[in-house]
Every structure is written in structure tokens, then in C-alpha cells.
């Protein structure tokens, strides 16, 4: 009973959260980011946390969704849902190519190849004509079955739906044979194969599901932000942020990636938005013109990735199982 009660109350809370913050666009924006990172980290977690196949190129699937959807919608009056499905197809193709090249190999190779594929995708988007190159793509107008898409609220609920989908998929996999198989592959590939597991097939399935979920997240993000460029949606840094979110929360669990996003996204926002610097200056603790004040005002905005780096190192050295790993044994 308790097992169902907590998720349902959390879902109810999530449903009413926009009303609780009075539909404040700033907070809604942050919450959309939390949901987005949670859903990306959940998707990453399926091959990464369960099967132990760390992808360092998940931005490629996210970006494939965002780009495919926006390219199709700019100038073409098609249903955004179709454009979203097209994104899933593109991302799945990239996943299939990556998987078929590297899943025969093991260890370091998948990590390396996933970066290489993501870089090929990023550089291609950067250098091709129809993708808008370095300028990116701007979507001027968007309509969807009469919903007001100038408000952030529909996107909040859209992201929430995707997160529920990602978590539901994870829960379904975890409770089925596939979940056991993925974990066996993570623990020992040779033993897994000797017990009848087609290792390459299951790795490919996990990556495919993950790529599709990441792509849907990317499509919705593209529709929400309406302007994308390679630096924003295809960068290696995004891939690394996705991994960190999952790791810090706890890999190989349903709730770990969500917890990671709840912890990390607001932290990054706090650092990025100069709130700390402004507060310190307005309280008169540091002076606006002193080097320290300058650092808090200007430097700290760039420091969130530095903080991510420190958190990663601390996390790996002292709690490699993530925050959830400390409290849980399994499930």
C-alpha cells in the first residue's frame, strides 16, 4: 500500500504545483527544467544504470528529437505530434547504428563510441544547410489543437507526462525479464551470455527505448523553447549533465534520476542566476566593485559546471551508489 501511496501523492503534488506557485513563469520554467532533466536521466538510466552501458552521447538523441521536430514544423503545417514521432524515428536510427557498431565490444568502447557518434551528429548539424548551421532554428508560430502555447503551463504538463512515461517504462522493465537481464549484463557479460542472454540484443533494446524517450523529451523542449542551436541541444556538456543527474540520485533505480534532477537543476539555477551574488551585494556583505563581489556577480554564473565537477568527484569517491544508494538495498 505504502508503495503506491507515495508515488500517487507525489504525482498529485506535481499536478497542482503550478497553481501552488501561482502560475509564476519563472518557477514554472525551473520546474519544467527539473522535469526535463529527470526524464532525460531516467531514459539514460535504462541502458546506463540497469545494463551498465554508460552513454556519453545522449545529447544526440535529445537533439535529434528537437531538431527533427522543429525542422519539420518550420514552414510546414503538420501536426506537432507527427513531428514528434519523426524525431523518435531519427533518434532510433542513430541508436541502432551506434548499437550495432559497438555492442559486440565491451568496457570502454561503448563510452568512447557514444561520444564519437554524438560529435558526428553535432558537427553535421553545425555544417549542413537545412539544419540552420550555427544559427540554429527558430520556430515562429505554433498551434496545437487550440491550446495556448504562449503560456509555459501546457509544457509543464507535457514534460510531466513524459517523465511519468519514462518512469513507467523503467518500472515496467525493472519488473520484467528484461530488467533482470539488463542487470545480469551489467554484473558480468560472460556469465549473462552463458545463461542464455543475447547480450548485444538486450543492450540494443535498452538503448533504443532510451533514445526514443530522450527524443520525445527533446521534441517537447524544442516546441517549448522554439529556438535551438547545436550548442544548446547537442553539446557534450548536456550529455555529461544527464549522466551526473542520474549518478548523483542513484543509478539503477526508478527514483534516483528524479531525485538527482530535483537536487541539481535548482542548484544550477541558483548559481547561474546570480541570486547568490545579488543577495550578498544587496545585504552589504561584499562590495559591488571589489574583486570578490565581481567574482560573485560575474564568475559564479559560469561556476555551475565547476560545481558539477566537484560534486561528481566527491560522489564517485564517497558515495558511488548515489544518494538513493545510501538508503536502499534494492527496489
Amino acid at each position, binding site marked *: 500500500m505504502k508503495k503506491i501511496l507515495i508515488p500517487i501523492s507525489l504525482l498529485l503534488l506535481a499536478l497542482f504545483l503550478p497553481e501552488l506557485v501561482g502560475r509564476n513563469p519563472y518557477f514554472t520554467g525551473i520546474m519544467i527544467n527539473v522535469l526535463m532533466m529527470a526524464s532525460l536521466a531516467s531514459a539514460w538510466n535504462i541502458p546506463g544504470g540497469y545494463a551498465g552501458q554508460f552513454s556519453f552521447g545522449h545529447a544526440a538523441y535529445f537533439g535529434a528529437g528537437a531538431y527533427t521536430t522543429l525542422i519539420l514544423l518550420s514552414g510546414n503545417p503538420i501536426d506537432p505530434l507527427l513531428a514528434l514521432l519523426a524525431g523518435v524515428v531519427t533518434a532510433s536510427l542513430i541508436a541502432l547504428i551506434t548499437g550495432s557498431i*559497438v555492442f559486440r565490444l565491451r568496457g*570502454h568502447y561503448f563510452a*568512447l563510441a557514444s561520444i564519437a*557518434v554524438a560529435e558526428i551528429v553535432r558537427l553535421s548539424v553545425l555544417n549542413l544547410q537545412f539544419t540552420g548551421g550555427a544559427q540554429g532554428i527558430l520556430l515562429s508560430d505554433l498551434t496545437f489543437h487550440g491550446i495556448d502555447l504562449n503560456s509555459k503551463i501546457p509544457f509543464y504538463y507535457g514534460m510531466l507526462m513524459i517523465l511519468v512515461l519514462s518512469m513507467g517504462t523503467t518500472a515496467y522493465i525493472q519488473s520484467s525479464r528484461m530488467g533482470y537481464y539488463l542487470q545480469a549484463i551489467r554484473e558480468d557479460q560472460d556469465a549473462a551470455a552463458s545463461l542464455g542472454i543475447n547480450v548485444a540484443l538486450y543492450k540494443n533494446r535498452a538503448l533504443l527505448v532510451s533514445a526514443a524517450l530522450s527524443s520525445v523529451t527533446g521534441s517537447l523542449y524544442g516546441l517549448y523553447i522554439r529556438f535551438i542551436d547545436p550548442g544548446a541541444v547537442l553539446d557534450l556538456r548536456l550529455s*555529461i549533465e544527464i549522466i551526473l543527474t542520474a549518478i548523483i540520485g542513484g543509478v539503477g533505480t526508478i527514483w534516483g534520476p528524479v531525485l538527482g534532477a530535483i537536487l541539481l537543476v535548482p542548484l544550477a539555477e541558483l548559481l547561474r542566476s546570480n541570486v547568490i551574488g545579488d543577495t550578498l551585494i544587496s545585504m552589504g556583505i561584499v562590495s559591488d566593485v571589489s574583486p570578490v563581489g565581481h567574482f560573485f556577480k560575474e*564568475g559564479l554564473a559560469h561556476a555551475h559546471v565547476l560545481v558539477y565537477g566537484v560534486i561528481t568527484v566527491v560522489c*564517485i*569517491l564517497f558515495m*558511488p551508489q548515489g544518494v538513493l544508494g545510501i538508503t536502499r538495498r534494492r527496489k
Partner: protein
Amino acid sequence: MLIIQSLVSGLLTGGVYALAGIGMSLVFGVMNVSNFAHGDLMMLGMYLAYFAFTLLHIDPYLSLVLILPVSFLFGFLLEKLFVSRVIHHPHQNQILLTVGLGLIMSNSALLAFTSDPRILTTTYSSSSVMIFSDVSVSVPLLLSFLVTCAITALLYLFLARTRTGMALRATSQNREAAQLMGIDVSKMSAITFGIGTGLAAAAGALIAPVYYIHPMAGHNFLLKAFTVCVLGGLGSVPGATLGGLIIGVVEAFSATWISTDWKDVVVFMLFLAVLLFRPQGLFGKRGGE
């Protein structure tokens, strides 16, 4: 003549890639760790050369005398403080730890030096010499290549002739057996990571006079170094040497005949092709499968 021109400049740049790749391959061979901070260590080498030149007025090639020992020590300490703690962990943890260290380095550099690219201009930066009557060779690239050859030769001598070098190779062959033979493998790891760091920083310093110096430069070098290592066979020093030269030439050829924008794509395609057709690399031990 275009072919020879591309070949020459490709080989010269490839030498520096080889140096970076050897450092990474050595770390992989001895410690079985993929060092994702390798590119950022190169970036630090670039800044070291830049500041040695602008603040101390030391020629970038001479500054290696300072950069090599300093970066060796830095790498030695990094291993002792961080990497050694994950050496028996799954490789994902090792990758993430080095990713984290790399993020700290690149973003500290960003805070300290800002994102403005810097250019190291020496008196001979834009000069070139002619060989074969109509092939021009940039002087800084040529100097980089010669220094690279010297460092590589010293490294080979060190690995082949000294006790420590032989112990390193033994550890690379079989860590457990080396330990049974009385080799202090944890010390070997620290020395290896020191050498790897030294070589990365040296490669960074050598490429500094011909490249934009900025905090995120490491990212691109990291992928190049990986490609070099995988092409040569993870863990193989001669493989990385040859791999570096090949990548340099492939890059120069694709810049000439395809376009500069696509040269990195060609290199990464080559990387995937190697994984597909010869995952053990040119010189690698089998066992990637």
C-alpha cells in the same frame, strides 16, 4: 604538389597528436583507466606555455623544460589523491571521476582566464620554410614535430632501458604477475599517470603556438587522443605513435579535399570504422571483443 603539402603538414600535426595519444595509451595500458581529463590536461599545458611566454618571456619550446616536470608532479599527485582510489572500481566510475576532474580543470580555467581565446605569437609564428622547392612548412609546426620526436625517443629509451621503464611495461603486460614479481604497482600507476599528464601537457604546449588557447580546447583534443589510441590499439605505445601520424594525415587530407568543416567528422567516422572492423586496433592485444 598539393598531396605532398597536405601529407607534410598532416604528419607534423600528427606528431603532436601522437604525443597526446601515447600519454593516454600508457595510462590505459598500465592502469586500465580511460582518462577523460586528458584533453583538459593538454589545455592546461597550453596555458602554461602561454604564461611562461607572456609573463616569463620563455620561448614555448624551451618552456617544456619547466612544463614537463611540473605537469609530471601534478599528474603524480592527481593519481595519488584521486585516481588511485577508483583503480579497482568498474570502469564507469573511473571515467566519471576523470570527467569530473576535467570539468574542474576546464571550468577553473574559465573562471581564471575567461573564455576569450588567446594567441601565443612568437617572432617566428607565421614564418615558414620551403622544402622540395615548392612545399612550404610552417616553422612552429616543424619545431613542434622535432621536439615531439625527441620526447618520444626519450620515452622509448626510458621504457626499454631503465628499471622503472621495464617495470612499467611489466605492469602493463600483467598487473597481477608484476605485483607477484615484487613490483610496486601502485607506485607504477602514479608514475604512469605522471608521465601521461606530462605528455599531455607537453603536447598542449607544443600546439599552443599554432592553436587558439581557450579553456574548452581540451574537449576536441580528448576525442582526438581517443581516436589515436583506439586506432593504434588501446595500451600500445607504438600503436599510438603511428595512430597519431595517421590521424594527422587523414585530417589534413580531408581538410584539403573535403572541407575544413568536415575534417573532424571524417576522423570520428574513421574511429567508428576501426571499432567495426578492427576493434583491437593496429597493434592492440586482442580482448576488446
